[in-house]
């Protein structure tokens, strides 16, 4: 280790001494670090602490310290994130690789148990639960049961991993969503490692919305599996020193607007400006009016606005949230002291940092909004949706080569008869860590439900309603606030603690509904509190998908139709025959804050997370061998030993010239990774489909390439297998 800038020192907190790599030391070398965005200061600390003259050199450090806001990124640095976060889709193959390394270690005569993540690695099983049952008290249990039946092989493997690896923890199914669990529990903000150093918590995750944690002042973003594995094993992530765009927030959110509305506005603003490949950082007087959960919602959607991440610096609100969410007093104190030592604790008087560009956003201008029908940046205010849908509908039909129409299809279902048409809302889902991590919008949804139910309003019978929180804390505070019975009365029973509709696991619609949509070629709609709505993501049968806040999801479940103008027309008729408007059942900010303040408690977090790694009974019932290597099952179609290390010796073999090679494919410009390795459907007659069928897997059980990444046999057969790939060796032919 080197210390060119003499930055190494120590500081004491709570009677303990910690080493520190001080940014302020760079002042003596002519670098005014206080003008750097907070995000870059975190990178700078990372380099200072890891200066070794090889992967991190003094000139790398000077390149960050002397950052030129307007320079095109060109300097590559080796960054070492402190930990790794995974979900089960991407995490299974990563753990498969680690398990394969253990086998290889044994073959090399070494001790397999030496293969472990060197940095803390945490995996949350959240992506697999589907909404099969809904609108009933038993939905949660039923869906969980089916989830286990479908994913038994993968879960048994992960359970083995949970016991076998050090530094690796698994949050079992049914406990929460990775980014919310990270926010509420896993994130350390400031870490004190074995090295004796205290340093900012940083991470990479194998999921694009890893960015949510930047709301808590923790730098993090999503990466591919190999990079995450390398990071776990102590190898640096290589990256370019980025440009950083500042967003100066001012004003306060007006009555009736939510954090969801704000993030849709931010997304619209930043997409228009262009922040792809850049960092975003939030700053300005508005920060003090923004709760931590609101910040997390905004940070979550960085992939939608196109940025690598959107950081909120650590400030008093961060500390308050750490306390509320049950982090130890010692942890909070360490965070505060460390950040102050580094002059990285944001206050109203913090000097303004330099940014590549500085954009302004007055939060006072935020209005209730949705975004869609297929891009998160296409925001439309609530007042305009019914009008805009007419255009959206025409465009969607035209795009499918169909004439515009006003078909009505009558449906009889469960003793009720109703009509479906273009704009009928068939899915209303309170879903996604983007919003379920935010008590204000969840309580707002509960309050809309309460006011509606008390007036006798009901959700429309054609709407598939669901509530899928990202942690148990949510159900606890909804219960404590007295809101659960009303949500249940409207069909928003809990269907699972996981991604559900947000990742497209919306589950089937009733056959009657599907038949009607097909018969009328209807453009049916979904309204969900998620972050993505590209075609096919939410459900194959909903061609218009609108992102909106949880209270608006409830509102559209009541209306059942996006043609209704919820600002000017009634949303329903009360028991007493009077018209009810959305404004009659919309809570005030004071009402929301009263319940949030009274119901969301530190004890809830402490209790919910005390047993988070233990999981439900079903998890505990999985038998996992305590062996240090995995007992690969010869008949598994999900988890197989990959051959990367076959025949590998301790010494590298000399690199050989390549002679007489043949061209497997000749491709044009812009070949994407999805062309090379598709994530979606496994075509029946493709090599991968044939392989699965040869093992007796039926077509309906093929699942997707994404869910079979733990089986290299499937994946290598699917390589260059995208149905749209164009290989110039076979002109005019599309597909693998």
């Amino acid at each position, binding site marked *: 280790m080197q210390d060119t800038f003499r930055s190494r020192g120590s500081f004491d907190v709570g009677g303990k001494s910690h080493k520190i790599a001080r940014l302020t030391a760079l002042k003596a070398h002519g670098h005014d670090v206080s003008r750097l965005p907070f995000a870059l200061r975190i990178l700078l600390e990372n380099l200072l602490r890891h200066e070794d003259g*090889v992967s991190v050199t003094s000139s790398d450090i000077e390149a960050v310290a002397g950052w030129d806001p307007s320079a095109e990124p060109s300097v590559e640095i080796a960054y070492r994130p402190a930990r790794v976060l995974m979900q089960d889709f991407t995490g299974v193959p990563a753990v498969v690789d680690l398990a394969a*390394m253990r086998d290889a*270690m044994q073959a*090399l005569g*070494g001790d397999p148990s030496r*293969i472990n993540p060197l940095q803390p690695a945490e995996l949350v099983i959240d992506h697999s639960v589907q909404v099969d049952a809904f609108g009933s008290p038993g939905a949660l249990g039923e869906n969980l049961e089916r989830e286990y039946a479908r994913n038994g092989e993968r879960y048994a493997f992960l359970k083995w991993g949970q016991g076998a690896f050090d530094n690796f923890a698994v949050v079992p199914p049914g406990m929460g969503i990775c980014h919310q669990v990270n926010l509420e529990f896993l994130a350390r903000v400031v870490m004190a490692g074995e090295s004796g150093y205290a340093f900012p918590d940083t991470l990479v995750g194998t999921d694009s919305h890893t960015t949510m944690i930047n709301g808590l002042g923790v730098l993090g973003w*999503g*990466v*591919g*599996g*190999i*990079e995450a*594995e*390398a990071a776990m*094993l102590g*190898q640096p992530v*290589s990256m370019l020193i980025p440009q950083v765009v500042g967003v100066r927030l001012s004003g306060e959110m007006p009555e009736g607007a939510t954090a969801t509305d704000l993030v849709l506005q931010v997304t619209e603003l930043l997409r228009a400006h262009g922040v792809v490949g850049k960092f975003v950082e939030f700053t300005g007087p508005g920060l003090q009016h923004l709760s931590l959960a609101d910040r997390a919602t905004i940070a979550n959607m960085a992939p939608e606005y196109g940025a690598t991440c959107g950081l909120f610096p650590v400030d008093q609100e961060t500390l308050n949230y750490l306390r509320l969410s049950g982090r130890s007093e010692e942890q909070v104190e360490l965070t505060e002291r460390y950040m102050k030592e580094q002059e990285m604790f944001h206050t109203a008087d913090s000097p303004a940092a330099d940014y590549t560009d500085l954009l302004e956003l007055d939060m006072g201008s935020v209005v209730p909004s949705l975004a869609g029908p297929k891009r998160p940046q296409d925001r439309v205010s609530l007042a305009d949706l019914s009008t805009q849908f007419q255009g959206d509908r025409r465009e969607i039909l035209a795009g499918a080569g169909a004439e515009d129409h006003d078909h009505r299809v009558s449906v009889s279902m469960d003793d009720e008869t109703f009509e479906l048409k273009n704009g009928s809302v068939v899915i209303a889902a309170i879903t996604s860590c983007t919003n379920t991590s935010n008590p204000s919008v969840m309580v707002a949804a509960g309050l809309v439900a309460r006011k509606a139910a008390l007036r006798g309003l009901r959700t429309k019978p054609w709407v598939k309603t669901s509530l899928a929180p990202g942690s148990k804390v949510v159900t606890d505070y909804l219960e404590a606030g007295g809101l659960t019975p009303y949500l249940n009365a409207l069909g928003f029973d809990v269907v699972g603690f996981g991604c559900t509709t947000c990742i497209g696991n919306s589950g089937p619609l009733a056959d009657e509904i599907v038949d009607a949509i097909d018969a009328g070629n209807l453009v049916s709609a979904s309204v969900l509190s998620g972050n993505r709505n590209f075609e096919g993501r939410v459900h194959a049968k909903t061609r218009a998908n609108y992102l909106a806040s949880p209270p608006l999801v409830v509102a559209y479940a009541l209306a059942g139709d996006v043609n209704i103008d919820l600002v000017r027309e009634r949303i329903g008729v009360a028991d007493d025959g009077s018209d009810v408007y959305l404004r009659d059942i919309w809570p005030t900010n004071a009402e929301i804050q009263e319940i949030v303040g009274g119901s969301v408690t530190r004890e809830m977090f402490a209790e919910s997370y005390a047993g988070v790694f233990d999981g439900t009974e079903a998890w505990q019932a999985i038998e996992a061998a305590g062996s240090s290597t995995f007992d690969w099952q010869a008949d598994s179609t999900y988890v197989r030993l*990959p051959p990367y*290390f076959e025949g*590998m010796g*301790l010494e*590298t073999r*000399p690199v*050989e*010239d*390549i*002679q*007489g*090679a*043949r*061209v*497997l*494919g*000749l*491709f*044009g*410009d*812009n*070949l994407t*990774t*999805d062309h*090379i*390795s598709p*994530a979606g459907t496994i075509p029946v007659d493709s*090599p991968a489909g044939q392989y699965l069928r040869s093992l007796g897997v039926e077509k309906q059980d093929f699942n997707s*390439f994404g869910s079979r*990444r733990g089986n*290299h046999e499937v*994946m*290598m057969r*699917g*390589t*260059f*297998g995208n149905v749209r790939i164009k*290989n*110039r*060796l*076979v002109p005019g*032919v599309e597909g*693998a």
Partner: protein
Amino acid sequence: MTVHFPSGKQMSIYDAAMEYRAEGVASIVLGGKEYGMGSSRDWAAKGPALQGVRAVIVESFERIHRSNLIGMGILPLQFEAGQGADSLGLDGSETYDLVGLAARFSAEDSPTGGTVEVKATRTDGVSVEFKAVVRIDTPAEADYFRNNGILNYVLRRLAR
């Protein structure tokens, strides 16, 4: 779909890859600009590695995909500026010799950058020779490549 050479038979890319592997023939991939763009997906490097792809020659790489290729032991090569398969008259039916790799990587220090000589021989025996830039940009990447991938590199270090 692709064409297997020299048989000239059309088959899936996977089947062709398996034929080449069975015949002990190395395979390579040719591409254009921004090869590997889109979301960072490691199977886009793992898959070709398992199919037996040894090198990818393209006009330019997306940054993360290039590093993933090295992470799986595949050599990323880039046509010299202004050149490409079209301008060199390559149609994919040639056999390719990449000379100078062995010498380059036999040295103890980790070579980065530079070029290799590529000789593409057509079925009529005429060959096209060109230089390709080796896109192994850092010493760490050279170590990963020499070890046939980043996981193998880490494994060897831990096994010692």
